């Protein structure tokens, strides 16, 4: 008898991902445009075209349509929808979303793997810096000589406002976006961030904000400066509404990211990773994230109130109707000052990390450096009105704000102590990342000291609103933060790609950017000292020489940044292979293979000491 064996077919497990399989950046763009057009049409038809603020209302609703459509199209709402219907993600879904075995495609869609999000942030940062940089070149080209020979005043004013906002956004994410995402989870010994889907959401929300900001240029721009002061904000065209919606969208992205970072560091450290064994970069990123959580809600509120005054007839900032521009300035700077430390701290943290590795020394005064950063963050919420010394607001408060602002120089000084102490008697390895550390030290001394001048009211009465202020903050933003961001990129590039960033091109880029920065902004200090106001598109002849010098310096910076871009692109696939730990670092991200496997660690490590044991006897491993 022959027996027939019946094979019951077991159906293969369902492929994970569901609708996510069909969604990516392309569908997001399409959905965003479609929803924006629908929103525009609905608003245009239903709203009262004679009413106050009609065009603003239409533009705001269109912007909301764009964001909603884009988020739908990238799949940001999918898991929310699943939550509501009680269908949670399966393991296969999670793996799909994390980009398991997905190759290049996972970079173009909603991917939860923190390493993918980190790389996506590198690209977004480069786009923001590139766009902001182009506008900067437009500004400097116009300022080559007096007389608006390049663009007219209105375009110039829009250039400088959008340049400011683009660069602020770029710098907020420049170190935190790529590296708090890629590196911090591995540094604390975790497999991913605390909330991986929120991580992807924060990135794609930021991406959604960028066309709004760039689009504002297309519809007349915002020509009121990036601080969008009232009452002049009411005179701007509808470009202002897109500008403000971009910011509101961004605050959602950054709040989500901040919550994620803090939760990751507080709840996902591996066994033995006590707070005192955390790398300093983790501390810096966490303190910055906490400060951002405090500051950015003010941004959300002030831009909403600004829009409301334009489109609803409210009177928050309109003096003749009971409002006051001073309120706008207070709300703005309550955000604006802490925000610059949100920008600064991750860059400082990265540079400190680099210094320990390339001087082969422990971090000098670990506890003091944390106290310094915490003090910096804490004090920064008490200084905001130093931006308003000459506005006539509350002259009696001038003294107290002068005190708090000058006191910030103390924790700032601690940063220098830690840097110099870490360098002291080290074996300094002058590889590319270290160049940016030294550049930072030189530039930050200038930026920091000139800030102290401005904190003194009698000096500020002379310097506020002049190119002196512009030079000060560019020394800090470009000379210090950007140098930190580039240093971080050069440092962690081998971990991301397995290859060194081309050293020769990198060093050429460094010298061009360093020399260019100092030429541009030292000359700008002189312009300011001599009396040239800021946000001027044309100027008196006595300022021409220094402006020409600044413009030449700007072109040098641009050349340097282009060389860097070339190095980043060419080394990605053709750079010299580096191995998993080319720098001999002791932090956890260097102890995992390159490319880093999907869940970082096969077996989660147990930590017995901090990552700064240079020069100390090794314990048995």
């Amino acid at each position, binding site marked *: 008898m022959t027996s027939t064996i019946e094979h019951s077919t077991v159906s293969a497990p369902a492929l994970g991902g569901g609708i996510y399989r069909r969604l990516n950046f392309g569908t997001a763009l399409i959905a965003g445009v479609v929803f924006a057009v629908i929103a525009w049409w609905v608003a245009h038809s239903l709203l009262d075209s004679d009413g106050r603020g009609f065009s603003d209302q239409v533009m705001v609703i269109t912007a909301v349509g764009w964001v909603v459509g884009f988020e739908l199209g990238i799949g940001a709402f999918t898991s929310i929808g699943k939550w509501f219907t009680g269908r949670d993600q399966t393991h296969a879904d999670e793996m799909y979303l994390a980009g398991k075995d997905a190759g290049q495609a996972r970079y173009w869609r909603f991917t939860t793997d923190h390493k993918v999000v980190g790389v996506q942030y590198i690209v977004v940062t480069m786009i923001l810096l590139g766009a902001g940089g182009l506008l900067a070149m437009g500004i400097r080209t116009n300022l080559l000589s007096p007389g608006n020979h390049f663009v007219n005043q209105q375009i110039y004013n829009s250039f400088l406002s959008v340049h400011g906002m683009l660069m602020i956004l770029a710098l907020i994410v420049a170190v935190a976006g790529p590296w708090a995402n890629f590196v911090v989870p591995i540094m604390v010994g975790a497999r991913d961030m605390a909330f991986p889907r929120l991580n992807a959401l924060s990135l794609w929300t930021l991406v959604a904000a960028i066309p709004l900001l760039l689009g504002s240029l297309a519809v007349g721009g915002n020509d009121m400066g990036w601080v969008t002061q009232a009452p002049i904000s009411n005179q701007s065209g509808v470009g202002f509404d897109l500008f403000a919606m971009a910011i509101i969208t961004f605050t959602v992205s950054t709040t989500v990211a901040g919550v994620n970072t803090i939760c990751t560091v507080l709840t996902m450290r591996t066994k033995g990773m006590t707070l005192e064994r955390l790398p300093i970069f983790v501390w810096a990123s966490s303190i910055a994230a906490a400060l951002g959580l405090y500051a950015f809600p003010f941004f959300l509120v002030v831009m909403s109130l600004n829009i409301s005054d334009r489109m609803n007839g409210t009177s928050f900032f309109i003096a003749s109707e009971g409002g006051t521009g001073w309120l706008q300035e207070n709300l703005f700077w309550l955000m604006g000052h802490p925000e610059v430390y949100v920008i600064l701290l991750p860059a400082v943290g990265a540079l400190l990390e680099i210094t320990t590795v390339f001087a082969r020394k422990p971090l000098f005064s670990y506890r003091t450096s944390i106290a310094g950063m915490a003090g910096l963050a804490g004090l920064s919420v008490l200084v905001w009105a130093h931006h308003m010394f000459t506005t*006539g607001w509350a002259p009696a408060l001038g003294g107290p704000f002068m005190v708090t602002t000058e006191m910030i120089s103390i924790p700032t000084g601690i940063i220098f102590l830690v840097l110099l102490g870490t360098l002291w008697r080290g074996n300094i390895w002058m590889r590319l990342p270290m160049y940016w550390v030294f550049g930072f030290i030189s530039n930050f001394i200038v930026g920091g000291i000139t800030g102290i001048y401005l*904190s003194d009211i009698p000096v500020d009465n002379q310097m506020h609103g002049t190119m002196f202020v512009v030079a000060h903050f560019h020394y800090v933003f470009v000379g210090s933060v950007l140098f930190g961001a580039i240093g971080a990129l050069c440092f962690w590039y081998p971990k991301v790609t397995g290859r060194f960033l081309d050293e020769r091109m990198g060093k050429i880029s460094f010298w061009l950017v360093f020399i260019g920065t100092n030429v541009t902004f030292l000359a700008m200090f002189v312009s300011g000292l001599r009396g040239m106001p800021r946000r001027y598109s044309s100027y008196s002849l006595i300022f021409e020489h220094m402006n020409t010098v600044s413009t030449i310096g700007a072109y040098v910076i641009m050349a340097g940044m282009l060389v860097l871009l070339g190095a980043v692109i060419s080394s990605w696939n053709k750079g010299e292979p580096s191995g998993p730990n080319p720098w001999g670092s002791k932090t956890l991200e260097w102890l995992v293979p390159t490319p880093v496997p999907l869940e970082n660690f096969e077996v989660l490590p147990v930590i017995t000491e901090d990552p700064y044991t240079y020069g100390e006897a090794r314990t048995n491993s």
Partner: protein
Amino acid sequence: MTSEKTTTSRAIVTIGILWVLLTAAGVLVSIYATPWLMPDSASNTMHMGILTMIIFSVAAAPVAALVYAVVLYALAKWRYTGEGIPPDGPSLRANSPLTMVWIIGSTALTLFLLVWGLSLLASDNSGQGGANEMTVNVTGQQWLWSFQYPSTASTQNGTPVSVSNEDLYLPVNTPIKFNVTSKDVDHGFWIVQMGIKINAIPDTITTTEVTPNKLGDYDIRCTEICGLNHSYMTTKVHVLTEKAFSNWLAAQPKHF
């Protein structure tokens, strides 16, 4: 073999010498470059402002010099020139006395700058008052300044009139009080060579005071972005002798 102590003391001595040299250079630059770079002073406020810049620069010079001295020494003496990853350096994790000195030193320096700044602020604010103080009303609008002299106010056919002008004329050595306002958006009223600056805000009056102490023509520039022609919102201030000023004022037509 050089001992650790010798390396350290050698470093300290060399850095110390570098520090002194760089500080000296910084102090010289502070004292001579600052007034050369800044506009002429036409008031005591401006003079004190320039002096403050010099003092702050002199105070900053040793700080910057120390940082640069250490960095330059590090690059010269502690550079690793071998192949591959350098060997570890000494495990210098902390130095409490140094940290204390650093923090106390920076606090002391900050306090010094604060005391200077606050007392200067107090003396600037102590007001000029006095019987011979003259008031000028400043109005900013997109995109010009106008100045009105309320001391000349009278009525003409029932309409209040006074002297007003687009250039500012002031008598020397007279305390002036400016009442500043705007007709539309915020502007920044800045007399460059007198070191005073205050925003002009719609439906609000802000004030600032100065005593011009030098004859001549100076610049007024707008310092708050106010729209299209912000860059062109500049005008002149002419400081005349008291006699020339009263002659000028008397000869001006009155407007309402």
